[in-house]
C-alpha cells in the first residue's frame, strides 16, 4: 500500500515538474513573441512566414483530400438514417454543422500534428543532440526566440487558416455525395447549408483550432527539448510528440465543446 502511495507521489511530483517546465516554456514563448519585439529585440518574421508555408500551404493537399472524403462519407452515413424519414435535404444541415463545429477543426489539427508537430520535435531534438542548441546559447541567441517563437506564431495562424479551408472542402464533399449519390437537388443542398449555419458555429470552430495550434506547437517543442541521447532519443520523442498532441487536441476539444455547450 505504502509502495503504491509512494509511486503515486513520485508520479505526481514528476507531473508537477513537467507542468512547471511547460509553463516556463509558455511564458518564454509569449515574452519572445509579444514583449521582446515591442522592446526592439525583434522577431524572426521571415522564419515565421517560411513556417506558415510549411505548416499551412504544404498541409493543404492532404488536409483537403481527407476532409473532402470525410464530407462524402458523412453525407452518405447521414442519408442512411434521414432517408427513412424522407428528410434527405437535412443531410446538408448535418454536414455543415458538424464540419464547422467539430470535424474540420479536429481533422485538420490531427493531420497537422502528425505532419508538423512531429517535424518540430525531430528538428529541435536533432539540434539538441548535435549541440546546436548549446551553440545558439553560447552565441547569445535565445533558442526560444530563434526557434520557438516563429513556429508558434506560424502554427496559431496556419491551423485556423487551413481549418477554414477544410470546412469549405468538407461541405463540398457532402454536397458531392448528396447530389450525385443520394439525389438531393444541388440548389436545395446549398440553400439548406446556408440556412443551417449560424455565426457561432464558425466562431467556435475557429477558436478551437487556434488552441489546437497552440497545443501542437507546445507539445512538439517540449518533446524536442526533452530529447536525450542521440538518434534513438529523437525517434522516441517524435513518436511521443504525435501521441501527446493528438491526446491533448482531444482534451482541448472536449473542454471547448463543453464550454460552448453552456454558452
Amino acid at each position: 500500500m505504502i509502495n503504491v502511495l509512494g509511486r503515486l507521489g513520485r508520479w505526481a511530483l514528476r507531473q508537477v515538474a513537467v507542468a512547471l517546465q511547460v509553463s516556463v516554456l509558455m511564458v518564454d514563448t509569449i515574452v519572445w513573441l509579444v514583449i521582446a519585439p515591442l522592446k526592439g529585440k525583434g522577431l524572426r518574421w521571415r522564419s515565421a512566414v517560411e513556417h506558415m508555408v510549411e505548416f499551412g500551404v504544404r498541409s493543404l493537399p492532404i488536409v483537403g483530400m481527407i476532409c473532402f472524403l470525410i464530407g462524402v462519407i458523412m453525407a452518405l452515413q447521414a442519408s442512411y438514417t434521414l432517408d427513412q424519414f424522407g428528410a434527405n435535404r437535412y443531410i446538408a444541415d448535418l454536414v455543415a454543422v458538424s464540419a464547422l463545429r467539430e470535424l474540420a477543426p479536429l481533422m485538420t489539427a490531427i493531420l497537422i500534428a502528425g505532419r508538423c508537430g512531429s517535424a518540430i520535435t525531430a528538428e529541435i531534438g536533432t539540434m539538441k543532440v548535435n549541440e546546436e542548441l548549446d551553440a545558439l546559447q553560447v552565441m547569445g541567441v535565445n533558442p526560444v526566440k530563434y526557434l520557438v517563437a516563429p513556429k508558434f506564431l506560424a502554427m496559431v495562424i496556419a491551423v485556423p487558416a487551413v481549418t477554414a479551408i477544410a470546412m469549405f472542402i468538407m461541405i463540398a464533399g457532402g454536397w458531392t455525395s448528396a447530389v450525385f449519390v443520394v439525389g438531393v437537388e444541388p440548389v436545395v443542398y446549398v440553400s439548406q447549408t446556408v440556412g443551417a449555419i449560424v455565426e457561432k458555429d464558425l466562431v467556435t470552430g475557429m477558436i478551437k483550432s487556434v488552441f489546437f495550434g497552440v497545443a501542437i506547437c507546445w507539445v512538439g517543442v517540449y518533446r524536442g527539448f526533452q530529447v536525450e541521447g542521440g538518434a534513438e532519443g529523437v525517434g522516441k520523442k517524435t513518436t511521443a510528440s504525435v501521441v501527446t498532441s493528438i491526446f491533448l487536441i482531444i482534451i482541448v476539444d472536449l473542454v471547448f465543446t463543453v464550454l460552448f455547450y453552456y454558452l
Partner: protein
Amino acid sequence: MSTPEPVIVVEDLEVAYGDKVVLQGINFEVRAGEVFVILGGSGSGKTTLLRNLVGLMRPKSGRILIKGRDFTAMSPDERVEMRRKMGMCFQGSALLGSLSVADNVALPLREHTKLEESTIDIMTRIKLELVGLGGVEDYLPSELSGGMKKRAGVARAMAMDPEIIFYDEPSAGLDPIVAAGLDQLIRTMQSTFNLTSIVVTHEMESVKIIADTVCVLHKGKVVGIGTLDDLERSEHPYVRQFFARLPDDVSDADPAYARSLTGID
C-alpha cells in the same frame, strides 16, 4: 605581452550533477592572450568545466570571473552582453544544419548587430577566408568534411571578434594531418588577434604544439598546472602517467587471462 592581466579567474569552483560532485576545488587563472589547455582523460570533468566557463551550466558554488566580473551571478541580459566577447567551437562543430556555411557564420552578426546585409556578407567572407574556407559559403554543413566543419565552427566563433575563444576537443575524430592543421589554426588565431584561447583536449601531441599553460584534470580535481616543462617535471603520479601514456593498472588486463576467456589457449 608585458605582465598580462588574468582574463578568466576561477575560484573554488564546485560542480555537481544532483548529488554527484564532478568538479571540486577548481582554482586557476587564464592570462590575456595565452593558450590555456585543459587536459584530462575521459570522465575527468573537462567538458563539464568548459560548459561552466561558457555559462551553459551553473556551478554549485565558487565563482568564475571573466574580465573581473562574476559570470555566474549575472542577469540574463548581462550574460548575453558578455557572450558577445566569447566564442566557442564545439566538438561536433554544432553548425546549424538548416543553414548554409555562410549563414551560420553570419548568424551572430544578424542577431546582435544592425549591420547592412552587404557588410555582413563581406565580414562572413573574411572570417571564412581566415580559417581557410574560402569558396564554400553556399555549402550546407552536411556537405563538408569533419575538418572543414570544425574550421567553419571556428569562423562562426570568430564572427563577433571575440576576446576569448573556447575549443572543445578540436582534434577529436580527425586524422593527424587535419588535426595538425587545426592546431596551427588555433595558434594563428591566438597570435593574429592576441586571442585568449581555452582548449579542452586529451591529445598530448596537440598540447605540445599549442599550449602556453596546461591544467591537468583528474577525477574532478586539478592535479597539475603550469607550462609543459613544469608538468614534465611533475611528481604527481597521474600527470606522469598521462604524459608517459601508460595504462591504468588493471589486473584483468593480464594477457593470459584474456586468452583463457577467448579459449585460444
